[in-house]
C-alpha cells in the first residue's frame, strides 16, 4: 500500500532491515570478488588468459589476492590430493565470511580422470561446500569466466549459501573430513 499522510509507512521489522542491509552488501560483494587461487591441478593454466588482456577478469571487479584473510573466493582448480585437502580445509576456515568456493574442472566434481586414484578425493562437495562448478577437462576460458558470472548471479539471488551450509552442517562435513584424513589438526611448529 502506498504511504500517504493519513496512512504512514509501516515500520520495518528487524529482519526486513537486516535483509535490506544484506542486499546492499551483496551489491558490493558481487562486484568486488577477490580470489585466492589454489592451483594444484592442470586447470590453473586457464587462469592467466582469464586474468590478463584476453578476457580481463578485472573488468568484473575480480582479482587475485595473496592471503585467505583478504579473499572472498577460494578457487580450487583441478584435482585435490588427500594431502592438500588438509590445507584447503585450513585455508577455507581462515577466510572471513561471506566466502564462496569455486571448483574448476571435472576433478572436484567426480574425480575426473583421477577417479580411481587412491591419492585424490573424488567429490570436493563432501568436504567443503562448493557454490559454483565449472565443468570440463579442462574448461575453456569462456566457461571459467561464465562460472564467475554465475557466481555473481547466485550472490544476487541469495543462493550462494555454502558458508552458511558449512556452519549448519558442520558435524557432517567434519565427519567426512575425518574419514578422508584421519584427523584435521595440522602438526607443525606453529600448531603444537
Amino acid at each position, binding site marked *: 500500500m502506498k504511504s500517504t499522510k493519513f496512512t504512514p509507512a509501516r515500520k520495518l521489522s528487524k529482519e526486513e532491515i537486516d535483509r535490506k542491509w544484506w542486499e546492499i552488501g551483496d551489491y558490493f560483494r558481487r562486484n568486488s570478488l577477490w580470489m585466492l587461487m589454489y592451483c594444484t591441478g592442470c586447470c590453473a593454466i586457464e587462469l592467466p588468459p582469464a586474468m590478463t588482456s584476453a578476457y*580481463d577478469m578485472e573488468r568484473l571487479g575480480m582479482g587475485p589476492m595473496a592471503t585467505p584473510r583478504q579473499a572472498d573466493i577460494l578457487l580450487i582448480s583441478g584435482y585435490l590430493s588427500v594431502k592438500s585437502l588438509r590445507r584447503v580445509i585450513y585455508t577455507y576456515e581462515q577466510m572471513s565470511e561471506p566466502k564462496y568456493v569455486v571448483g574448476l574442472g571435472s576433478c572436484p566434481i567426480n574425480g575426473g580422470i583421477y577417479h580411481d586414484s587412491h591419492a585424490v578425493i573424488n567429490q570436493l562437495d563432501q568436504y567443503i561446500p562448493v557454490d559454483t562448478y565449472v565443468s570440463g577437462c579442462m574448461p575453456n576460458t569462456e566457461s571459467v569466466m561464465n562460472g564467475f558470472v554465475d557466481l555473481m548471479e547466485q550472490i544476487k539471488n541469495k543462493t550462494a549459501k555454502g558458508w552458511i551450509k558449512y556452519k549448519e552442517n558442520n558435524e557432517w562435513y567434519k565427519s567426512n573430513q575425518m574419514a578422508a584424513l584421519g584427523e584435521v589438526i595440522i602438526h607443525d611448529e606453529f600448531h603444537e
Partner: protein
Amino acid sequence: MIVNILIGFGIAILGFVLQTSVAGVNRKIIGRLQKRYGPKWYQEFLDIFKLLSKRSISHGWIFDFGVIMALGGIIATAMFMPITNTFVAFAGYDNFFIFVYLLAVGMLGMAMSASGSGNPLASIGVMRALTTMLAYEVPFMIVVLTVIKLSGTSSMIGIGEFQQALGTNWFLIALPLGGIVAVISLMGMLGKKPFETYIAPAEIASGPMVEYGGKQLGMLFIMHEITVFIEVSLFVHIFLGGASNIFIFLIKYFVVYTVVNLISNVNGRFKIDQVVKFYYKWPLIMAVTQAIIAIYFGWVI
C-alpha cells in the same frame, strides 16, 4: 574552532573521495596500457565498502586498536593539509614538519597492529616498510630543506605562493636534480613498483596486510587512500607551485598521481637491500649536489 575541525574533517573526506576516484581512474588507465578493458572507475569504492561489509576476526586488542590509531592518525594529518592558498582548516598550522611528524603516527599505528597479528610475514613487511622509509626520507628531506632555505618559509601555502610569484619557477623546474629526486622519493612513499618491496604479494603475501581481512582491511584501505592524498598533495604544494584555486589543484594532483603510476607499471620490483642501496646512492648524490648548487652557488633556474 568547531568550524575549523569540521572543515578539517571535510578535507580528510575530500582527500579520501578524491584519491579513491583517481586511483580507480588510474586502474582503468593501467588496464588500457595493458590492452585490457579495465575495471569500473568506482571499483575502489566497491572494494572498500565490500571489505567493510564483511565479517572479520580479531587477533587481540592491539591488532584492532592499531588499525583505529592508524586511521585516526592519518585523518588528523589530512586535516592540516591546505588544498589551495586560502582553503585550509587551521590557518598558520600548515607547516611541512607537522606533516612529517603526524604521518608517523599513522604509520606506526599500522606497524603496531601488523606486529600484533603475530604473523611472521607481517613482521617482515613492517621491517621492510620502515627500512624503505629510512631510505627515501634522507634524500627527500635534503631536497625539501633546500626548498625551505630558498623560499624562506616552511609553510606549505608560503612555499606555494613563493612559486606563484612573478619571476620564480616551480621548484620542479627551478631545481631539476632535486625534482627528479623528489619524484623518485614520492614513488617510494606511495609504495609504487620498483620500491614496492614491503607489499610484495608474491613474495611475503602482501606484507603488513597479511592477516587483515574484512573490516580492518577496509579501514586500512581508507587509511592508505588518505595517506596517498597527503603525500601527493605535499608534492603538489612543494614542487608544483601549489594551487590558487581548487581546479588547478585537482589537475595537478591527477597528473602527478597518473605519471607516477605509469612509471610504476613498467617496472619490476627491487629487493630490500637494492632499495636502500639505490636511495643512498643516486638520489642522495643528486640531492646533495642540488643543495650545494642552489644554496652556495645560488644557481637556480
